[in-house]
């Protein structure tokens, strides 16, 4: 029996739990949330082989993989506990401080011989999967440009605003360069269309290292509206755009991928795929902290996401002449 523990019963946590419950690889789903009633409500909705778990976590006995979809920096505490128990862990966090905190657990994770998958959400997450697949289509990759619009609920919106407030930087020549915060218009798939986005660092940070010898990497992020009510459950439609520039067949070329979905649904599917990968005993994952693209086969992940209803698109544009 393979048991997955989902920490957090918010918008994304619920989607992860549903995705895992519907997966053949996971036989039992446990849900933990600091608000016990919310966890029980999710378990009630899942039905079948699922149960609630007491919060705060005391023991991870019987748990094969942990997926953390908590607000703030709680993912770091959960990951630390998972490492102590030698249980692989998946984090969907996208805020700069949480990603930095999780990166800091690389040493302990290697010592424990366990894997922590970070940025297993919409962006970072789905953007990495699409970018690493696009990179395989080139002889040499020069530059990757990531963009995201959308969020899933108040905690996600707050994370987007934190990321935009953080120092903007681009990766060029093997190191980070601080850049000014100027807005640029990014064309996402319809119905999102053109949106003003600002340069940020956090989504790109997870991407560094996923594609070898990458010369340049930038990420931009659209602003998040402030929900009218503090606990507004806005499950907004979001979009990502991934541009990969490089050379193939002797010439410079570009591949542009995009995706549009409810952010929580896409993030939940990516996290579930990462969790299923971590419990695959036939193909052990490397110990340490890794981005999701370093753990999954991008093409297989895209096919799996498509089967789960998260569809990607490619931009096919050419001048008429």
């Amino acid at each position, binding site marked *: 029996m393979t048991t997955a523990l989902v920490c957090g019963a918010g918008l994304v946590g619920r989607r992860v739990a549903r995705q895992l419950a519907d997966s053949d690889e996971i036989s039992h789903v446990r849900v933990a949330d600091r608000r016990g009633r919310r966890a029980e409500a999710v378990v009630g909705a899942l039905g079948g082989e699922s149960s609630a778990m007491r919060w705060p976590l005391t023991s991870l006995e019987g748990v094969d993989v942990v997926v953390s979809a908590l607000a703030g920096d709680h993912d770091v505490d959960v990951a630390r506990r998972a490492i102590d128990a030698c249980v692989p862990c998946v984090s969907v966090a996208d805020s700069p401080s949480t990603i930095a905190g999780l990166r800091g657990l690389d040493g302990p994770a290697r010592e424990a011989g366990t894997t922590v998958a970070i940025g297993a959400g919409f962006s970072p997450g789905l953007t990495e999967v699409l970018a690493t697949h696009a990179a395989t289509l080139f002889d040499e990759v020069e530059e990757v440009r990531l963009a995201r619009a959308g969020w899933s609920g108040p905690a996600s919106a707050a994370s987007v605003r934190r990321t935009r407030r953080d120092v903007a930087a681009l990766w060029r020549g093997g190191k980070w360069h601080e850049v000014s915060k100027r807005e640029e218009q990014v064309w996402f*798939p*319809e119905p999102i269309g053109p949106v003003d986005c600002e340069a940020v660092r956090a989504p790109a940070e997870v991407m560094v290292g996923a594609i070898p010898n990458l010369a340049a990497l930038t990420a931009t992020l659209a602003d998040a509206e402030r929900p009218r009510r503090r606990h507004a459950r806005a499950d907004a439609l979001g979009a990502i755009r991934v541009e990969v520039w490089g050379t193939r067949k002797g010439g410079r070329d570009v591949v542009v*991928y*995009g995706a549009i979905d409810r952010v929580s649904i896409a993030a939940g599917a990516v996290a579930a795929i990462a969790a299923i990968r971590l419990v695959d005993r036939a193909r052990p994952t490397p110990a340490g902290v890794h981005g999701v693209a370093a753990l999954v086969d991008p*093409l*297989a992940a*895209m*096919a799996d996401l*498509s089967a789960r209803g998260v*569809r*990607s*698109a*490619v*931009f*096919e*544009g*050419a*001048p*008429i*002449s």
Partner: protein
Amino acid sequence: MATRPEEFRGPLGMLRVVKLFRRVLLVLGVAAAIGGLARVVGKGTVEPTRGGWRQLDDTTFR
């Protein structure tokens, strides 16, 4: 030397305002003329594009 009749001579301040107004009108007129000329004569075009977003299907993943 001919001078303006007394009844047409305004205060000195008013005369300056009128001159300034004429100059502003002249500048705006010249700017509009140049702008119109640039718009009509300009050769710059935005290259039309075709295509758009195509959803990836199962054949992509094989």
